[in-house]
């Protein structure tokens, strides 16, 4: 059964290193997304797993077998392309039955397989159409059926939803997970969309500049990111700079730039060290005391108001207020902001500064 293991995988183009010594194991039946900003090497990585790109160094194991120098067609994978890549000269049915045809199965079996998978993506009625007659979402569903119909237990999805409209994108992502779990296949899904990654994966692999930054379940990466880059890339966050004034009991007191104090329920950084606090907008509240701030901008987001405020410590802090409460706030109004100590995360201040640490490349 297909477990995927990458050992020291590296790809260089001349002096540019696209992927730098990546080690990763994807368990059998697991749904893993490789998430990262564009240019981080995630597509190069999945293409090396598929055999489309040959690695400069390192090994690819699929189902325990060394596949590093095995050609694409012998790796037994299903691959879905970002640009969909349905064969334009073949009907939907013939597209889906291409895998069985490549194995030279008999006509009847080819027909049965394509029907089975088209039914699975609910497109049996479009069987005789040509790809150009379908809309984007349908095309990608056919392409998914085509990849599954090859009978592979390893599905590689290379930004499968990027070319689609936002609404279709959301619908299709649940479909992807459902099918993958229903068929019990191992799935590796590449995306730059953190929301997409969070909603489909068992585990997320976050990449940046050719290396893996952090791996973990969507919840781990959102609630307890071990890395300042992760905190900033996954979801939204406020990053406040300061230093540890004292550690008492289970909490640290952090003094901000102009003397404001914030409590965080984390004690692993010793007093006197410079730190960065990460706190999500939904965990910042208007209160009777705390950081004094002035509202600079209010944006209506549907279920909540996103408020931007400038604090006395020269930080820009954003926080959310449910739509019902929003009426009392206006631009220019002064208020106090408090942070829920259990939801904030502390990081030692990065040597090259915060800007450098959260930069996408």
């Amino acid at each position: 059964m297909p477990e995927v293991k990458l050992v020291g995988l590296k790809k260089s183009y001349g002096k540019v290193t696209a992927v730098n010594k990546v080690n990763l194991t994807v368990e059998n039946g697991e749904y893993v997304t490789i998430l990262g900003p564009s240019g981080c090497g995630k597509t190069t990585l999945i293409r090396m797993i598929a055999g489309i790109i040959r690695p400069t160094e390192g090994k690819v194991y699929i189902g325990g077998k060394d596949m590093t120098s095995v050609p694409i067609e012998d790796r037994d994978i299903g691959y879905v392309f970002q640009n969909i890549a349905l064969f334009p000269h073949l009907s939907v049915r013939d597209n889906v039955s291409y895998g069985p045809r490549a194995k030279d199965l008999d006509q009847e079996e080819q027909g049965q397989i394509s029907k089975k998978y088209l039914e699975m993506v609910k497109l049996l009625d479009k069987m005789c159409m040509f790809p150009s007659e379908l809309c984007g979402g349908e095309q990608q569903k056919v392409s998914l059926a085509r990849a599954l119909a090859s009978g592979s237990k390893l599905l590689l999805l290379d930004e499968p939803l990027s070319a689609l409209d936002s609404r279709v994108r959301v619908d299709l992502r649940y479909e992807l997970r459902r099918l993958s779990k229903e068929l019990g296949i191992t799935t590796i899904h590449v995306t730059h969309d953190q929301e997409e990654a969070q909603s489909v994966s068992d585990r997320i692999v976050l990449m940046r500049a050719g290396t893996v930054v952090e791996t973990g379940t969507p919840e781990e990466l959102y609630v307890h990111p071990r890395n300042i880059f992760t905190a900033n890339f996954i979801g939204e966050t406020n990053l406040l700079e300061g230093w540890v004034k004292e550690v008492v009991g289970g909490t640290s007191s952090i003094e901000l730039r102009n003397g404001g104090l914030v409590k965080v329920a984390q004690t692993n950084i010793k007093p006197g060290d410079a730190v960065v606090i990460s706190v999500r907008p939904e965990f910042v509240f208007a209160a009777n005391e705390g950081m004094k701030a002035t509202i600079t901008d209010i944006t209506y987001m549907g279920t909540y108001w996103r408020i931007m405020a400038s604090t006395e410590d020269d930080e820009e802090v954003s926080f959310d207020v449910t739509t019902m409460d929003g009426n009392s706030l206006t631009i220019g109004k002064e208020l106090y902001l408090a942070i829920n100590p259990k939801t904030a995360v502390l990081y030692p201040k990065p040597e090259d500064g915060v800007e450098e640490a959260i930069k996408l490349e």
Partner: protein
Amino acid sequence: MIAVISRKRFRTGWTAFIILFFLLFVILPTVYILSYAVTDWGSIDTYVLNDPEMMEMITNAIIASFEIAGIVTLIDIVVGLPMAWMLVRKDFKGKKFLDTLIDMPLAVPTAALGFSSAIFFAQTDLNVPFALNSITSPLLLIILLHVVFSYPYMVRSLSAILVQIDQTYETAGRTLGASPLAAARTITLPLFRAGLVTGIILCFSRSLSETGGTMIALATMNNVGFATGPTLIGDWKSNLVSNPDLAAPLAFVSILLIILSLILLVVIKLILMKVHLPMGRIWPRPERIFSRGLFPKAKDGLTVFFLVILVLIPSFFIFTYVATATPTSFDWGPFLDSLVYSFLIAGIVTVIDIALGVPMAVYIAKNRTGKISEVLDVLVNVPLIVPTAALGYSLGVFWTGQNLIPTWDVLLIILAHVAFTYPLVVRNVAGAVEEVDPAFEETARTLGAKPIQGFSRVLYPVIKSSILAGAIMAFTRSLGETGATQAVVADAMTAPVYIVTLIRSSDYYVAGLACIVLIIVSYVAMLALRYVTNGRRSN
């Protein structure tokens, strides 16, 4: 001035004039000879249909022409497809060099190519070292010759389409378990139709039309009796004065060539575009074996080998001949005169092509959806398809019979050359205009520019390089043309016709030197073309 030519009435008049010129000076003369079948059926009946010997000669020549064109096209596909594939899909050292080699034969005028290939392939008593010196069948020799000059066209049109086919399709096929060979065969090849159609039509019509090189090759091997349609026209036209009875056979051959080539054009297009081949089966094991190991390498090796043996060596073998032959003294005078004459004609032809072809191209490209422009678009291809010898003869009969314009030799030759080079300029420029976003010109108009200013300040700078490219193509084609020239004026002394005369009188050494001069002149023109098109890319 700008105000005057911007008026609606002037612009309508100008468009009408351009279209009228095209119809009256290009299309009508090209196919005029068809009317001979109606007006003079009697003489065709007497001199052709009731003369079995004549009938046989014509049938044989026409069959030979189509046989040659068919086989040549087939060979071009078989050896050209792997080459196009290599150039587009593979990365290897020396790829740029190979890319340049492909175009080299284009720099050699077909007259020179005919002589060069003939002394390489055919059995002659010239004793040139390294020559193959073995072919005795005129049919085979002409097939080989036509492969030499049509091969680059095939490779170019195939690779132009191959570049546009997303390689992801093939990769997708391979992720589904198809071997590289199976994926290429079942996915990329079917997507290839358009390129194949262009390539086939280009090669077929070029082969069908070729006159000068064919005549020279046949003369070099001292052939008597074998003829193709175009060489028949050339030969008979020069005997027409002494034997007026040849008018009917000449007209008959021209009509046959024109009608058959046009029918063929339509048939090829229909077959290739409409008939869907059944989806081929995939044989996993054998196709996998042929995709691996030595097979692809052997295929690439053979492809390059064919290029060298079938195309490059024959093209430039003439240098070996001239370097090793015993020099004979001769008078450069007549050849230089003919060269000047050819240049003069090619120059005037190019100027006319640009002056009247560019507006036509702009009209066609900008009125894509209109019925008139659609018809014009199809008609523009006609002179490209019709064999130039038939075109020349038809045009000669048209203008000498009309008394509308003086029938000076130069004028007739110029008109003939305009007829078959005009489409080259129109095609090139129309393609470029279509790629230009109309928003540029519309923006200029919103800023207050008149239509003519919109053209000169916005459109012209963008399509300038395509106009130049078209012009150079027209110039070199006119410079190298034999068939149309001879068919319109039998004793015209352009450079390629002069070379034919030299070889017929067995002045091989002089002919060789003349060919080399012609090669150098054309090569310089080719360099200019490269320079211009590369300039376009870097912009």
